[in-house]
């Protein structure tokens, strides 16, 4: 019951945040919308017992990534409001068309297609099985997934090297 309430509230929050990202004219507002979504989704994680991931979400995403976004927004100018005019011909009708098709398709699938999100869902959900505490996560992370964990090292190396390669100008190059 509590879960349902939280689910409804947070879902609304997440979607509202998402819409803000898309619809706000000022990038700062978009970033704020994204922040809202991130938090709301984090709450939905928690509700589903994904504690560790929720924490990471808040720390890494909301804490670091979003700040980075804001920095860049500030760097390249907060006042770059977008107009609502669409300057590409056909872009808007096409987007509306795509959206329409997706919605119709999703509706049809739900109503007539015997669609199940999780066809293999077990009847008895055992909360302990997916209680994503640090301990619980850590075990697969460092056994089954150890290689993936190592691979993230590559990713971060690239991010660092790439950012330097792209954005770091030596003095004489400016």
């Amino acid at each position, binding site marked *: 019951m509590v879960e349902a309430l939280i689910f409804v509230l947070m879902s609304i929050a997440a979607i509202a945040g998402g819409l803000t990202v898309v619809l706000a004219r000022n990038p700062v507002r978009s970033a704020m919308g994204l922040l809202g979504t991130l938090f709301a989704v984090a709450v939905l994680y928690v509700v589903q017992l994904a504690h560790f991931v929720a924490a990471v979400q808040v720390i890494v995403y909301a804490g670091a990534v979003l700040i980075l976004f804001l920095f860049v927004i500030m760097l390249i100018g907060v006042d770059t409001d977008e107009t609502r005019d669409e300057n590409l011909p056909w872009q808007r009708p096409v987007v509306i068309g795509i959206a329409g098709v997706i919605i119709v398709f999703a509706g049809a*699938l739900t109503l007539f*297609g*015997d*669609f*199940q*999100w*999780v*066809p*293999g869902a077990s009847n008895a959900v055992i909360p302990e099985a997916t209680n994503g505490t640090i301990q619980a996560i850590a*075990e697969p992370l*460092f*056994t*089954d*997934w*150890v*290689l*993936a964990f190592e*691979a*993230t*090292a*590559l*990713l971060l*190396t*690239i*991010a660092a*090297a*790439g950012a*330097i*390669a*792209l954005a770091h100008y*030596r003095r004489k*190059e400016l």
Partner: protein
Amino acid sequence: MTTPEISWLAIGPELVLAVGAALVLLIEVQWKPATRVLGSAVGASLVLAGGLTLVQWFAARDAVDAADTTSLVAFRGMILMDGFAIFGRSALLVVTALSIAAGWHFFRALGRRGAEALALVLLATAGFSIMVASNNLVMLFLGLEVGSISLYVLTGMTRENQKSDEAAIKYFLMGSFASAIFVYGVALVYAGTRELSITGISGFLDGFIVNSPSVILIGIGLMVVGLGFKVSAAPFHNWAPDVYQGAPAGIVGYMAAVAKIAGFVAIARILLTAVQEYDRAFLPVIAGIAILSMLLGSVMALVQTDVRRMLAYSGVAHAGFIMTGIVGGSSDGVLFYLAVYSVQLVGAFAVVAAVSGSGSVGSDLDKYRGMARRSPALAASFAFLLLGMAGLPLTSGFIAKFGVFADAWSAGYEWVVVIAVLASVIALAFYLRVIVIMYMDDDESARLVVPRPVRWVLGVSVAATLLWGVLPAWLLDIAADALPL
């Protein structure tokens, strides 16, 4: 259960590459040596990685011969050391080596940032190498991202021109978009099967009949889109011409080739292993993508005036041809095609770089006018590679096309083959255009200076194209042995 399972051999090549990349960066920071020194580090790591790959190949063959393949499953099923992976990895390493040689001028011209570029190339190769070996969709995604992000950066590395950064942002935005779509597909397949492992999924689908498979099918579709983007299959190809044109010439061949190899190996692994159960559903779709790619790529290439854009569209068409092999349902044709095409591609872009400068943007057809007189060897190599891409007999391109067509035919997709052969005729038309300009127009411009490494690379790729066109058996045998587990 609490100890991780480490198989050094299985990740040996990637490890070597990553260490190599780190070394390059460190040496650069510490000693700021000549690029040549970095090059030898890079070369050493490539050679070592190649050696390890060879060891893997023999290990894999022994295991298959002994009918005990457990040793080929590493890191608790996270990655595999099967022939499929090793073939893809070998192709990646060869392409990397050739590309670095061909683009050597580019790296040198980058000055101090050459080290970063070299490191990124090595890391990208490592990433894609992980990708081809992955037996886990998330692992695969990680490898994909390691590779892709490196490529985004490499695209934007030159600062001399504005188009390079346009290409980078386009590539980055669309690539991330496609990655997001791909990983959503992974999530949906996970929702449908409770598995992230490829062999796990196939085992699951073998054992259970999913009553409502829509979620899996949507997931498959999204993964196909994500990977289709990487291999620049239509209609996800738009980025390719712009990026090929805008990215530094010295690195385009590499970007194009590795993305295709890794992308197609992943597609083949996922479709032909993991979700093979649904082939009746997805093969027509793949056939559709193949046909659209072949036709669109060929027709669009016909009207290009820039060789790089032309090659990009031809790449779209080639994606379609390789897809035809996927439609055929067997992987050996695809692997052979990837091997020969990527070698040709690197060679062709080596020529482009030689003609228009390695850091340049675009490569107008006019620059090739009368090249047969100014630089006969270069023109002849380029012409030969183009004919190889066009699939003329006695080039590897013909055998490759023949292979995928034969697969598709025997799988019952005769109509796809018919359209494919017709598309290859249209494709021929634009390759010929370049040859016409090189051979049949006169131009008194200066002779081109072809750097020695480029000559080597061209020699290798021309020789390979000819050799595999005349005596393809050994590579075909290898490709046929390189089966996914």
